């Protein structure tokens, strides 16, 4: 969801206006995803690197996340949206941490669509945490060090909160940047990458259809040979 600040700057607006517009776009994309049968949607809301942004912007974003979760809880329950939050929640304000736990707990039985929100997230930190969890399992006698494989790492990743869909099929990055920026580094091995120049607040149904059509046209082999 990249490009909120640049979208606002292009219109002579403060970056907060861009983030609010970005939220409206997110709402629309979740709605479309549910309508089109997409079962899991992971969104990159705030990276661990974003903490270095100006304090005013960071405080605004934390308040925005809190307001969005409070206002949308009813909708999550009505629409059957299961919410999962990944990232280092210990860095979030205490009120937001509490709200996150409440939302995750209340929506855990929903089945229509899974929405994973990455807040204070780092792909490298996620891999590090997975290694740490595995070390604990070895220490507790549940696993031998020589038996550690990549599938053990995969099981310990935070995105395993939705075990049915561990790896995304399609990754869309907006605003013209052509990189992952520390997002889902492990999970994206076979993920189709779609980069668009559109800023996130302007990303609409037509852009989404273009990304999905592009995905459908690709010959994905997952490393296998196609006969």
């Amino acid at each position, binding site marked *: 969801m990249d490009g909120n600040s640049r979208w606002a700057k292009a219109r002579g607006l403060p970056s907060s206006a861009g983030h609010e517009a970005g939220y409206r776009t997110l709402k629309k994309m979740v709605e479309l995803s549910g309508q089109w049968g997409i079962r899991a949607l992971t969104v990159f809301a705030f*990276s*661990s*690197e*974003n903490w*270095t*942004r100006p304090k005013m912007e960071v405080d605004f974003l934390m308040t925005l996340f809190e307001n969005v979760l409070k206002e949308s809880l009813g909708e999550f329950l009505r629409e059957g949206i299961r919410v999962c939050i990944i990232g280092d929640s210990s860095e979030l304000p205490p009120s937001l941490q509490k709200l996150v736990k409440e939302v995750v707990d209340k929506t855990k039985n929903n089945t229509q669509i899974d929405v994973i929100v990455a807040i204070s997230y780092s*792909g*490298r*930190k996620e*891999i*590090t945490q*997975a*290694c*740490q969890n*595995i*070390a*604990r399992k*070895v*220490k507790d006698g549940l696993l031998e*060090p*020589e038996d*550690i*494989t*990549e599938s*053990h*790492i995969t099981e310990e990743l935070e995105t395993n909160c939705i075990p049915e869909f561990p790896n995304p099929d399609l990754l869309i990055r907006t605003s013209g940047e*052509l*990189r*992952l*920026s*520390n997002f889902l*580094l*492990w999970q*994206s*091995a*076979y*993920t*189709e*990458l*779609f980069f668009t120049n559109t800023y996130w607040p302007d990303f609409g149904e037509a852009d989404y259809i273009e990304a999905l059509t592009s995905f459908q046209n*690709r*010959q*994905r*082999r997952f*490393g296998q*040979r196609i006969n």
Partner: protein
Amino acid sequence: MDLARENTWVWIPLPQKFQAPMILKLILGFCWYLLHLMVNLRHMGSSVNDLLFSYIISMGLLLKHQNLQLDELNSLAVVVDSEEAKNTTKIKQLLCWLSSIGIKYVILYDMQGVLKQTIRTDLESLTNTSMTPCSVVDAKMVTSLFHFEKMAIEIISLADGKEGVAKAASFLYSEHMKDDSEICYRSEPDFTESDVANALKATGSAGAEPDLLLVYGPARCHLGFPAWRLRYTEIVHMGRLRSMKFAVIVKTMHDFSKKHQNYGK
């Protein structure tokens, strides 16, 4: 007049309720055809434009593409679909082109290790071990480092990616237990990103983080390139290896040189 003997043509108009939907279908069908035509023309125009641009770049007619500013490009990665990686002629041609552009460090990757089996042998015979190791990376950190003209080449596969992290996890645990062996109450493992980076180095799975990654193959994905090294890498899908063009590589390098990263700030 014998009405029974005459052939009479009678036009029976369709009932009105069927006429409107049929006309609507025809109109919609025509609109759909028109839309397809417009999209096809747009794609054709784009292809012609790309071909023309490639020709102009190849002829060196565009000054901005002649002197590429590659100061920010310390390391370039090339991911090749394993099926396409068997085309060693194309791989060698690609390496020649990259060397001619002035690339100093290339990481060649394919999932199944085809490049390790094919290109490696050729590069081993070319590598001059007396050459000063490339300053981009500590040569001791990398197990498959070769030199081709003025370019250092690292060849890796999936074994150096996800499997490498698994080995690093095992190494981390062993190191933690070694440090902890004297303590009566064993502490919980508490690893940092630096610990993982050092573990990858110790197990031979570390390496330079490429600034730019070119993907050759049918799918636009990095096919398991070492996740730890991909944090801020620009990723560009170049199409099939058999269709690769020098001009497209030059244009990609030029576009990269204009990029600005703010690293999340």
